Each structure stands twice: as structure tokens, then as C-alpha cells.
């Protein structure tokens, strides 16, 4: 039996700010992995760069701390190389919805079997507080002292339109609920986005714990069923007055890996590479 202890990385102190929402995302992730009964050596957590990107160091599982924005691309390579691994990508809102948007939207289309947990604090944390793609209009930051002019990215709507097959929003202030959402994403066969509202206690004084506590509600509490794409899309636009949490959309669809005949006999990493026969390749040129 796997327990939370197995995922404990206690040789190093965590460098996040006290009170940061990242702590509870980490705790939720550990709980989700334990509840999904996965062993740490079969789990790879690929991250980007940002406060959020440091997460792999604080959990005992294989980690790939890639570049800013590249978590999903690296995770895709890992998954294709060994699809028996449980691959989870993590990163920030700038990481995934800004510099890494290209990888994110195309991974949704491909429906790789992986979960992507985004620490969405609506700010660039690590670089000390500039606007992010999810910052709300009018929000004042170091890089937008007069307020943000553009409309924010809507990650939920974006993921639904781009073909993700599990799209959820969690809140770092509700650990148990978030763990369930992450577990659902991990166990889902296909690309799962779990966008997590994660108040930044240093750089974002608007979208605070209080703000989310007041505004959020759970979709499941209102009898919402996540199987209709158009309804999900409609719900994805609810924000100003009330902010829905939970699974917006879930669908069964073949994964990318499933579509590859090369992978049906086992993962690439297990295929022998010694003495490969190239006779048939050469004879084409004779």
C-alpha cells in the first residue's frame, strides 16, 4: 500500500512563501497520487519554471524540471517514450497559458493520457509580480501600472474547445475537493486539465483566498453533469459573480498513444535497440 509518506521529500525545505496556495496544491497532488494507488517510481512530474515549477523538488517522484513554458512538451516526450508511466505536468498560468500556450492547446487536441495541473494565481509570481494571461482587465501590476487592457485567457473554455477530455477547476483553499479533481484527472484516460485558483499572497491582492471563498461554488452541488460539451462551454464563461469549481467537461475519446500501432506491443523504452535489422531499408536504395 502506498501512503503519503512514500511521496514525502523531507530532505529539503520548501522555498514557497508562507501562506502560498502552492502548499495545498502539493498536498492535494500527493493525496491524489496515493488515492490513485500509484507508486512514486512510476510517476513523473514535469514542470515548467515559476514558483509553481519548483514543485517536483518537494515531492518524492521522478521529476523533470524543464524550461519556462515547456512542461507539457517535455511531458509529451516522456509519455511517448514510456506510456506506462503516469505523467503529470505542472506549471503556472504564465507558463502554460502564456509562453507555453502552443504546447498546451496542441496537447489538448492530441488527447495524450496525462494530467496537467496549472497553479493559476493570475500573476507572474517568481518574476515578482507582472501581469499574467489570466489577470483580469484593469488589474494593476508592475508591467501594467495603468491596468491590464486585454481580456484574460479562459483556460477552461480554451481546453474544452481544443479537445481536452477532462476539464476541471479547483481551488487551493479546498484541499480535499482539489485532491479529488486531480485524482480524477490522473485516472482519466486522456488529456486532463486541472486549473487551480491559487492566491498569491505577495503579488496579487485582488484574487485572494477571501475572494475565492466568497465567489466559488461546486458544480456538483447544483446537479451539474459534465458530459455535454456546449453546456460545459457555457459554464466555462461564468466568472464575475460566481465562480464554478469542479469538473466542467469529461468525455471518453481515444488517446493519442492508443492510435499508434507502434505502442501496442509495449512502450518504446522496452523495445530492444541492439542489432537492428536495416536490410529492408537498404534494399530500397539498391
Amino acid at each position, binding site marked *: 500500500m502506498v501512503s503519503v509518506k512514500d511521496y514525502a521529500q523531507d530532505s529539503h525545505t520548501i522555498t514557497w512563501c508562507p501562506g502560498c496556495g502552492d502548499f495545498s496544491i502539493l498536498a492535494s497532488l500527493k493525496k491524489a497520487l496515493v488515492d490513485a494507488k500509484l507508486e512514486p*517510481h*512510476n510517476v*513523473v512530474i514535469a514542470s515548467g519554471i515559476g514558483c509553481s515549477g519548483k514543485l517536483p523538488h518537494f515531492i518524492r517522484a521522478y521529476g523533470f524540471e524543464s524550461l519556462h513554458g515547456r512542461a507539457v512538451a*517535455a511531458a509529451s*516526450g516522456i509519455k511517448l517514450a514510456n506510456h506506462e508511466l503516469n505523467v503529470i505536468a505542472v506549471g503556472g498560468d504564465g507558463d502554460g497559458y502564456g509562453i507555453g500556450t502552443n*504546447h498546451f492547446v496542441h496537447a489538448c487536441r492530441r488527447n495524450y493520457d496525462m494530467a496537467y495541473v496549472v497553479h493559476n494565481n493570475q500573476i507572474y509570481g517568481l518574476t515578482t509580480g507582472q501581469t499574467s494571461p489570466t489577470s483580469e482587465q484593469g488589474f494593476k501590476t508592475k508591467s501594467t501600472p495603468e491596468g491590464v487592457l486585454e481580456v484574460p485567457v479562459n483556460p477552461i473554455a480554451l481546453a474544452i474547445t481544443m479537445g481536452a477530455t477532462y476539464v476541471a477547476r479547483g481551488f487551493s483553499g479546498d484541499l480535499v475537493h482539489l485532491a479529488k479533481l486531480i485524482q480524477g484527472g490522473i485516472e482519466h484516460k486522456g488529456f486532463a486539465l486541472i486549473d487551480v485558483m491559487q492566491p498569491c499572497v505577495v503579488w496579487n491582492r485582488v484574487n485572494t483566498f477571501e475572494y475565492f471563498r466568497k465567489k466559488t461554488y461546486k458544480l456538483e452541488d447544483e446537479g451539474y453533469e459534465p458530459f455535454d460539451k456546449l453546456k460545459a462551454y457555457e459554464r466555462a464563461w461564468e466568472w464575475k459573480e460566481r465562480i464554478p469549481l469542479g469538473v466542467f467537461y469529461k468525455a471518453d475519446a481515444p488517446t493519442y498513444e492508443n492510435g499508434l500501432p507502434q505502442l501496442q506491443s509495449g512502450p*518504446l523504452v522496452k523495445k530492444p*535497440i541492439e542489432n537492428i535489422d*536495416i536490410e529492408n531499408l537498404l534494399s530500397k536504395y539498391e
Partner: protein
Amino acid sequence: MRINNMTFKAGGEAGAGIATIGSMFCKLAQRSGLWAFAENDYPSLIRGGHNTFTARVSDEKIWALHGKIDLLVALNARAVMEHADEMSQRGVIIYDANKVKKEDISVKRADVRLFDVPLSQFAREAGGEIFLNQAAMGAVVAVLGMQIERLYDLIEKTFATKGDEVVEKNRVAAKMGYEHVKAAKKQEFEIKIEPKRAGKTLLLNSNDAVCIGAVKAGLRLVAEYPMSPSSSVLHWMAEHAVRQEIVVKHTEDEIAAINYILGAGFAGVRAMTATSGGGFSLMCEALGNGGIAEIPCVILNVQRAGPSTGLPTYTEQADLRFALHASQGEFPRIVCMPGDAQEAFAETFNVFNMAELAQTPAIILLDKYIGESMQIVERFKETGMKVKRGKLQTDEQMENADKFLRHQITKNGISPRCIPGQKNGIYVCSSYEHDETGYTSEDAQNRIAQIDKRAKKLNAINPNTYQPAFFGNSKSTFLLVSWGSTKGVVLEAMKELQKENINIRFMHIKYASPFAADTIKQALQAASKTLICEGNSEGQMRGLIREKTGVLIENAYLKYDGRPFTVEGMVEKIKSLMQKGEEK
């Protein structure tokens, strides 16, 4: 009468099937036991423009084009007008009388013979315009005095999978072209192909050769974004993916491509991406991630003329310094520059081993010129090719591992490497500087230790595997130096010079990193006259050699017009240097 030694050219609009005629011609030469080298020249567009395919065949091994055109298939007036001056004495131009009006062309040379063949009419009669290539091939076969059955055999082999009807229509077109020439045989032609028996050969370009070398090396994942002149690698890989059990992903961009292969390398799979300068530029940041995180991976850069979009379908060797220094900071990398298809195959295989041994990225530099030029080479030999995975740990080894240090400081800098899924190996593979465990560290002492450890790794590669190759007269005091794709033109020029009893020495450099500085320095010091030729304007290898050996190569022959070096130009350069003595 000239037998088995000639140059063929086909010219016409893009989309007219010039490349098909050319490759059919080369295949015929191959099946006739001859050697060949062929170049294509085309602008960056899909329809219109002017495309040419030039092939030289010989009964001895050849490495480059050389000499005038003996037989030209001109599919439009422009092809006649543009290449008439390049014709040899009494050369033959086959043109389509239906498409090229006599009054639109004027060939000043009285000796050149124009031969009209109603190619498009034959094609239509055979079943459509697409059979025009075959009508032209039929005419070519007749001019060269070959048996039409040889072409029929080739047609059958080439189109067998498309069904009997397609084979038949191609055959009919070929027959009409052939018989037209035979019937109208007004004059004898001076060039002839007489089939010989020969050993097993391959007809391919260096892009293909890299693909085969990579497969042989155990490649399992390709992530690539199309970019001329590297796209044929993506197409080749995609075509062979299922059968060879390789996953081939056309990614959203080159940044994704390299990050995929880093992920795959981390997970224990041999992976590669291919691109050209623009794509390689986008990969720079991740290249460094491979360096600091010690991930083996292979990047093929088929150079085209830069900077920026540059001349997309033309050649250049101007990415050498870029490949050596791409990405911020310092880390070891392998940079290999094969000189021909044979080397492209063999060195690609080696490079995969080196990358895994040194746990670091490797870059292969080809260029448009050899990447896309077809040549006939001896069938690749596989003897002695052994996949070596360095310090990659087996599952059994990891079963007993205790406090595994992925980035352990060792004598030669190479640390044991585990992969996810293995028990007892859990670590974070990080783009940050890290300690031996992989944990982020900004400690000064650790920083020095990790930089030094990584820098050492290339020394673990056996120097015999990256030495330059020497050709010609080892006693000559005239040393010509080149790298990568210029090899063939130099070898061909040396053959010409030999005819005049000029025997120079030639050093071809295949690796810019690791760099065989001692050997290169010795060779330079033993020479009294030195010349380097390279396809860039700055003399990038010349500078590198000076930096690494302290020796300045006196003379440089640099070419950066987007076109490959020519044998004629090379011969002239060498001779003028020999006569003049010093030249800057």
C-alpha cells in the same frame, strides 16, 4: 565515342516532374553498374520557377558534378536558353516540340544538336500529362543506346504497388519516346551507356543516410517540424515509423520538437529531431537544458543559406559556430559534420553512442547540398556497429541501488544514469544548476564542481572516433583543409589535379566537438602551404582551428553564394595558389 562517362541534365518549371526524371535516370545508371552524383537546384516555390536536376555518371566512383552537359532534357524554352552554353561539344538537347517553339529558342552553338520529341503528345496518348517523364526517359534511353527493357524493368519495380494499369501507361509512354528517337535517328550520338556488372550499391542522399544510421542506432522517437531542406527526414521517418517501431511526431513547433526529445531522452529512449537554421534557433534554449540536465539527444541541422529565412533551398556551411555555441552558458556538446552519404550513415550511428556515453546533446550538421544530392555509394557495411549505452543502469542494477546520485562527481565526469520507472533512482532532472542528487543548488563550490564534471565528459569519448580523415599524398607540403559537405568536390578536384601530376594532401574534419586538435595541428605544421575551403564568408572553421591549435591557415577559399563549390573552381584555386606562392 564516350562510354559510361557523361553528365545529364533535366530542366523545367517547378512541378513539371524534373526530380522524377532525374531520379529515374540515376536509378538506371545504378542498375547499369555505374556510379553517379546528382544535384538538384530549385527555388522556394511549388509551381513555376526553374528547376534543374543534374547527374553525372561514371564507371569509377565519383563524388561531385564535373564537366559540361552531354544530354539535356528541356521541358520548356527557358531550360534550353539557360543551359545551351553549358553543353559539351556536340551535346544533345531533347525538347518538347509541342511546348517549345523553334522561334522561341536560339542556340548560338552550331555543334549542339536539338532533338524534338513530342513529349506531351506521347504523354497524353499514354494516358495523361503525368506520363511525360516516362516519354522523356524513353527518349533518353534511346539517345544513350541503352536497351528499353532496362527502363521497363525499372518502371515495373517503381510502380508495381500502384497496379498494372499505371505500370502499363508508363511503359507505353516510355516506348513512344524511345521509338521516336530510334526512328528519327538522323545522326549518331557520341555518348553511350553500356551496362556493367558491379558490386552492391545504394543510391541515396545524405538526409536518407542519416535516417538509416539513426534507425540502426536504435532511434525510437522523432519529433520534428518541417523546414527545408530537412523535411525529407520527417517524411522518411513517418513513412517507416510503424514498421520500424518508431514514434514520429510532427509537433506544433521546433521548441516542442526538442523538448519532446529531451523528455524521451530522460525517459531512456533514443530520440532525434531534424531541422534547419531557423528551427535550430528556436531550439537553443532547450539545447542548454539537455546540457545542464545531462540528457542525450540528437539534433540534425541541415544547413541552408541564412541568416533568417535566407535562401531556403540553397546551401551554406555557416552554422558551424552557431552549432558550437548555441544556447547560453557552457556545456559540452558533440558537433559532427559528415562529408557524404556513407559518412552520414556511419557517423549518425556513432553520434547516438557518443551522446549517450557523454549524456549530452549531439548536433549533426549537413547542408542542402549533400542533404539532397543523390549519390551512388557502396552498400553500407554494418560490421563492428555496436550500440553502446554508456552508464545507463539496468533495472537489475537499480534494484540494489542505495542513495543513487544521478549527477555524481566521478573521475571522468560521467555519472550513472537511471530512468523513470526504475526503483531506487528517483530524482529531479533539472534545468537549474543542481547538486549530485539533482536538487537545485546555487552553492558556489557545487557550481564549480558540476561545471567541471560536465566539461570533462567529452574526454571520455575515444579519440579514434573523431579524428579527421586524410586523403591524397601524405608527403605533399600542400595541405587543403575542409569539413562537411565540401569533401566530395575536393576529392574530385584532386583527381583532376592528378592528371597533371599535382598531388596534394587533404584533411577532412568530421568533428568540431570533440576536436582532434593535436592531429590537426601536426598536419598543419607539417605543411608549407595551407588552404581551407568552406561554404561561409567568415572562415568559421579557419577561426576554430586557429583558436584550438594556434595555427592560422594561410589561405581561405570561401563561397557563400548559396551554391556548392565546383570542381573547376577548386582546381583553379589550388593551381593558382601553387603558382603564385603566397596569397591572402
